[in-house]
């Protein structure tokens, strides 16, 4: 089993659904990664970045505020309040998404350290793409 199903939903609708190779979550007790075949787990999530490696090897980052993740065999479910995917065809679109993401994290009312962490991650993620 080299991929698993990942679903991310928010109150305003599903954000992501598809097969992935690995995901990294900002857990309440520290960041953790999930690979296919991970043991069952339910965890609180904090504001941060969900990093996804899709089945075709491409990477995607989604900034979230608070939520939950539930992992069981071959399927990972993420329930979050707010999420902004950092995607776009042009650089300006991505810049706009990053702004939105920063706004979202700031509203979540977490520490400055966490905000800086998110910013750094998002920026490094977009840099590797261009």
């Amino acid at each position, binding site marked *: 089993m080299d991929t698993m199903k990942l*679903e991310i*939903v*928010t*109150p*305003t*609708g*599903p954000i992501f659904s598809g097969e992935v190779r690995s995901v990294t979550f900002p*857990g*309440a*007790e520290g960041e953790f990664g999930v690979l296919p075949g991970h*043991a*069952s*787990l*339910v*965890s*609180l999530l904090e504001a941060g970045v969900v990093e996804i490696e899709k089945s075709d090897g491409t990477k995607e980052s989604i900034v979230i505020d608070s939520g*939950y993740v*539930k992992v*069981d*065999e071959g399927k990972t*479910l993420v*329930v979050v*309040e*707010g999420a902004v995917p950092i995607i776009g065809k042009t650089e300006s679109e991505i810049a706009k998404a990053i702004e939105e993401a920063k706004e979202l994290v700031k*509203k979540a009312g977490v520490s400055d350290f966490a905000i800086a962490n998110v910013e750094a991650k998002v920026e490094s993620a977009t840099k590797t793409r261009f």
Partner: protein
Amino acid sequence: MANLKEIKLQIASVKGTQKTTRAMKLVSQAKLKRAEELAKRSRVYARKLDELVSEIAYEINQNKVGGSDSRLVQQDLPVRVVDIVCITADKGLCGGFNVSTLKTTLGLIREYKEKRVQVRLRVVGRKAIDFLKYNGMEMKDEVIGLSASPDYKQAADFIGESMKDFIEEKTDRVILVYNGFKNMLAQEQRVMQLLPVDISTVEPRELKSSIEYEPEGYEELLNALLQKYVEYSMYYGLLDSLAAEHSARMQAMDNATNNASERVNELTIQYNKARQESITTELIEIISGMEALK
């Protein structure tokens, strides 16, 4: 002659009104579609949240006889203070939509008063606020604008206040009242108990393997999840109410447009009769004038 002019003006004015009501109907139709779509999308979230809650509820029911200690799920609390959360529209012109919600709310208040339970009101929507103010009823909290454009964060903040009071044992029950969307033609009064949450009705799901919890202890997780659950219920209530409002307005405006066409027909007949009458009078005047000259 003055009569003819008056009728003509009246016809023009009714036609003007008809244009407005027809436009309002079309606007509501478009907005209804959007509101329905929003509600449909958000239901995915509800399903997943249910899944999570049910699994944790199963875990609790298995490991602990008598269920959870959390106040959010206690069913047998003595009820002394009740929060009633009531949602109406900000605007009128939608038939009995707002009135029926207010009637239900007043009914509930009366019911609780008879049981000597203190009632606190938390109100969303200008129509309800105006009505309650006019009747001199006190409100704990009021919001305008939220029912016209539901926002998850705002809804969560609003219900969060109520939840905080509940956890601090200031209130013993929270009830949500609103007019929900049933189908294109009908709305339905919905009265929902938000708190305490009844997890015994949640269908427990058996798992293939045991779950690890992080942070440890499912109580904390359950509490946080239930809060999400209540927040979402509030948000969904707003979405549902908005869809219902638009369907109610659509209907009301459709009726108004039909009534206006009827009125135009009536007035046109009156106008034609008056015109015929005036022509007849003129003819008689001319003929009698000619007769007089002979």
